[in-house]
């Protein structure tokens, strides 16, 4: 049976058909739907892990105990998980283990476009790179076999264009492989220096040569001989873009197994064509390898390392063809950046912080709340990575004090991010007597990636009830004093103002927890469906204060301020900031 599937759905299907038993992941675009789809197969134990490092460790443990296992994450997530990845690379597997990295050339929703193929090279682990949905499924199954055959964890590298594109996939049945026997073997699974030294030599002399031999013989690395004037070495999404442009008029070496690279096949292919091009996204990974072997080829001299590759770019740089003319109109379209939603619980506390904007610095984090850094709220000086909202604040505060700046540092972090890697920062802040304040925006969900459960929501990935981590008890247990903790409803502006003022007045680590669920949650939408605010035009003085909270439901057209009541959820933040009491609330909650 053929079915249209995204790359992410096909990866999940591949894991299912391959008899995978344990899957762990942390949500992150474009990888999120992999685990969401895996969790629909009851044969596989699936979990949202607290972070990517935990996910890889869960998968490693399951593998050593004999089960086929996988972990999935976005590219920057692999940075978090790099520690277990490198050690587990030495140890090797028992049940097959596949780690999926979803890279983002073009950064549609990421902070970097790092090329994680370099991780396979650095950790010395086998790597596969599919080009479309069918290959996502086929390569997943192959990856489990490779993992077990060569005793190595396998890195499965995809990109946004593959994860979020659909193509036809042939479905097959699941093959149960069961759980392998586990035999205690500390020389393999306890990485102390004496064992690691032996393991490293073993890798270099046995595993890697065997993998290289495989790379040169596997059909995953395929030569397509056509006209031999031009030969293209390519992988991943670049392959389908190249095929779109050249069809069968040039020859290809399509690399699907990309660490170790197929040195012999590359030599054979390049010797058989007149001119060699390397088409790959981001870093010159294959190109550098080929050039180091003395192969003459053209790659990043003409292709940028930045952004995605497309058929249009290939036509422009290789054939000198200008893009199709298309239509153009002499009217500029306004930007449409993502924004905090109407009724978003982050808005109120950000507005309260903004009241002190000359007296504070804000280190923010990765989540919807990063959008608070944009106009008109402008809350945020830095956003680095998951968890840095707290830890970077510690350093920022120290430097501020040394410089004699009279500024309070606020760190902003979401609930899921706090569990991910914010907790360790808060422990550091308490332990090292930081003066910073931490705002934990507890909206009861991992919102930005499209609503995934987390340790604070009381549900697992499959919707089964789970114990809820008590955020307030946790913060207190870390050492935040009762008087330095405020738990507020962020729809209550008085509470927001008081909490921010108290934080500024304190010289000890301070925590504000805002508790209000994400406005987009289905049960919240249902409950608040009939609530809305309206402007009383007789009282409105057009002072535009309400426009400064950045709510997409409020607009000023023809000098009249009005509310889109289908969008408004009656949070009443605008009502509370209006100096002329010109906004009124209507409706009742649906019980």
């Amino acid at each position, binding site marked *: 049976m053929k079915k*249209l599937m995204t790359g992410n759905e096909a990866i999940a299907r591949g894991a299912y058909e391959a008899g995978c038993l344990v899957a762990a992941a942390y949500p992150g675009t474009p990888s999120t739907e992999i685990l969401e789809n895996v969790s629909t197969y009851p044969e596989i134990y699936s979990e949202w892990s607290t972070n990517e490092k935990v996910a890889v460790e869960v998968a490693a443990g399951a593998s050593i105990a004999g089960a086929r296992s996988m972990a999935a994450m976005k590219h920057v997530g692999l940075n978090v998980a790099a520690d277990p990845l490198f050690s587990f690379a030495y140890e090797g597997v028992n049940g097959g283990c596949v780690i999926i990295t979803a890279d983002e050339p073009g950064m549609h929703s990421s902070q970097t476009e790092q090329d994680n193929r370099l991780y396979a090279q650095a950790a010395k682990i086998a790597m596969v790179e599919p080009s479309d949905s069918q290959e996502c499924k086929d390569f997943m199954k192959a990856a489990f076999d490779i993992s077990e055959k060569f005793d190595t964890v396998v890195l499965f590298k995809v990109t946004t264009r593959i994860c979020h594109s659909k193509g036809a996939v042939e479905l097959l049945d699941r093959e149960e492989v069961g759980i392998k026997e586990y035999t205690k073997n500390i020389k393999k699974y306890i990485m102390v220096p004496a064992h690691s030294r032996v393991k490293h030599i073993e890798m270099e002399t046995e595993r890697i040569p065997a993998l290289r031999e495989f790379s040169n013989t596997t059909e995953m690395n395929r030569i397509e001989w056509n006209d031999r004037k031009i030969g293209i070495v390519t992988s991943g999404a670049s392959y389908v873009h190249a095929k*779109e442009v050249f069809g069968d008029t040039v020859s290809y070496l399509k690399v699907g197994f990309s660490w170790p690279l197929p040195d012999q096949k590359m030599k054979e292919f390049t010797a058989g064509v007149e001119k060699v091009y390397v088409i790959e996204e981001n870093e010159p990974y294959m190109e550098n390898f080929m050039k180091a072997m003395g192969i003459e080829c053209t790659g990043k001299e003409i292709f940028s390392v930045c952004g995605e590759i497309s058929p249009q770019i290939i036509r422009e740089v290789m054939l000198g063809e200008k893009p*199709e003319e*298309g239509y*153009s109109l002499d009217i500029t379209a306004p930007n449409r950046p993502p924004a905090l939603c109407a009724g978003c619980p982050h808005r109120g506390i950000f507005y309260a912080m903004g009241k002190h904007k000359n007296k504070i610095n804000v280190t923010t984090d990765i989540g919807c709340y990063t959008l608070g850094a944009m106009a*008109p709220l402008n809350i945020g000086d830095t956003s680095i990575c998951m968890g840095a909202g707290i830890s970077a604040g510690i350093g920022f505060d120290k430097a501020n004090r040394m410089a004699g700046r009279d500024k309070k540092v606020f760190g902003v972090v979401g609930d899921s991010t706090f569990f991910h890697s914010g907790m360790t920062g808060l422990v550091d802040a308490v332990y090292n007597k930081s003066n910073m304040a931490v705002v934990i925006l507890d909206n009861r969900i991992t919102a930005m990636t499209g609503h995934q459960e987390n340790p604070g929501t009381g549900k697992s990935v499959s919707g089964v009830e789970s114990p809820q981590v008590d955020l307030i008890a946790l913060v207190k247990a870390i050492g935040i004093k009762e008087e330095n903790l405020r738990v507020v409803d962020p729809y209550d502006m008085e509470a927001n103002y008081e909490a921010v003022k108290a934080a500024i007045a304190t010289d000890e680590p301070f925590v504000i927890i805002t508790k209000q669920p994400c406005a987009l949650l289905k049960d919240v939408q249902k409950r608040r469906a009939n609530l809305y605010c309206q402007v009383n035009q007789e009282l409105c003085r057009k002072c535009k204060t309400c426009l400064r909270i950045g709510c997409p439901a409020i607009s000023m057209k023809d000098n009249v301020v009005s509310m889109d009541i289908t969008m408004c959820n009656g949070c009443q933040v605008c009502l509370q900031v209006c100096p002329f009491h010109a906004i009124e609330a209507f409706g009742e909650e649906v019980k």
Partner: protein
Amino acid sequence: MNKRILMVGVGGQGTILVSKILTEGLLEEGYDVKMSEIHGMAQRGGSVTTQIIFGDKVYSPTINKGEADILVSFEKVEALRYIPMLKKGGTLIVNEEEIWPLPVLSGLEEYPLGIMEGIKDTLENVISVNAREIAEELGEPRSANIVMFGLMVKALGLDKIDWISKIKKFLPPKVHEVNVNAFEKGLSL
């Protein structure tokens, strides 16, 4: 020859559902189909784009500048933004609804005037409707996407495919009737 459809809109307008229905029908009809969707932060009011290519054999899932046979825009300013993607002589189907982005709402940028006039002066083939108003008249403003889908099917000449069963497959039973009506209305315009 492969056909290329570019759908653009704003998060929450239901473009993803339309692409699901369309690609499912095309695959069943025996076409090779590829679809690519960028919806990173779309839920937060950003632009959404969906690219669908179908024909005998499709390699790349992406549409390049000046290549789209049909541009389907669920919002007026998004039509303006993506017009350069439409090939010369291609068809634009546009929902005349206005959804103001935040920079316009907060007064930092202007929602431009005269978009439709400009479009109609420049393009040969324009089909414009207010899909939301049509859907409201049918009793469910959220069916605007299915009205647009009916228009697309007609413009593509794909009305022989059994779309009603696909619409029913992807939507809950209680909204079957209104969406079938929306589809037929779109088809008849």
